[in-house]
């Protein structure tokens, strides 16, 4: 059960990373998104690149991203993903949520014993 919870969290954050990547870089294929996430995280995020595709599908089903066929750098057919208006809104909301959560956790770490008295 513990491993399941871990992947759940990971999936959630992965979705947020995908949204942010598409927000910054515009239309991108799966490989491009994977590369970008890898670069930004500095290789600390040890996820199989393949796990990205179920996340992309889920986001597309929710209407946060849209996809269409296009030609990749090596002139092969590739599926390009882009953020929709709804996806942009979702990104805003989730970014706020995330920052709030991070801020709260940070405050917990900073709190010292004397602050409580």
């Amino acid at each position, binding site marked *: 059960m513990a491993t399941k919870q871990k992947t759940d969290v990971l999936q959630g954050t992965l979705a947020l990373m995908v949204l942010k990547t598409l927000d910054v870089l515009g239309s991108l*294929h799966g490989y491009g998104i994977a590369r970008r996430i890898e670069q930004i995280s500095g290789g600390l995020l040890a996820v*199989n690149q*393949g796990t990205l*595709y179920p996340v992309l599908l889920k986001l597309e*089903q*929710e209407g946060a991203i849209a996809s269409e066929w296009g030609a990749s750098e090596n002139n092969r*057919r590739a599926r390009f993903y882009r953020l929709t208006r709804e996806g942009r809104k979702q990104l805003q909301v989730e970014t706020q949520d995330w920052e709030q959560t991070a801020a709260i956790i940070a405050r917990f770490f900073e709190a010292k014993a004397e602050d409580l008295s």
Partner: protein
Amino acid sequence: MKSLRRFFSRLASFATRRTQDERLREEIDEHIALQTDENIRAGLPPVEARRQAMLKFGGVEAIKQEYRAARGLLFVENFVQDVRFALRSLRRTTGLTAFVVITLALGIGMTSGTFSMVDALVFRPYPVPHPSSVVTLASTTRDSSFDDFSYREYLDIRDKAKSYDGVVAQRRYGSGRLQRRTRDHAAY
């Protein structure tokens, strides 16, 4: 709202699951090809480059599974698969199937036959407005505490008795005597 939209999209992709599978396969191929190119540019020999690319991508089958689970209506898909499998298995063992079918048919037929008989004879009330006020008349004589009436007695009762709405006689097969079936409306 989001989950509703997701459901409809799942429904749609359930109908087009072949092309969807195709799409994922193509995307994976493309992904691995791009990563392989990247690895070759980094100086790896082509075979090793491809191997590394696949390692990095992770278990393709596992991804496909997960993708499928997220894509369509997995339980419907599984159900359809199970039914197909069951039909195939049945076709393989024709003799056993026939035997089982006949056994079930006989079993169901016998039970429902018995029940409809009992239902018609015992449970069903008489097809008259007040089934509870239908009574059977019997006569009591010195010799016997329960006796039938003769036809003349029947005529007398039918014409003179005032307690009943009507009186009918019924011939009991085998006994050759007459029996009264009456409808009593003078609720007592």
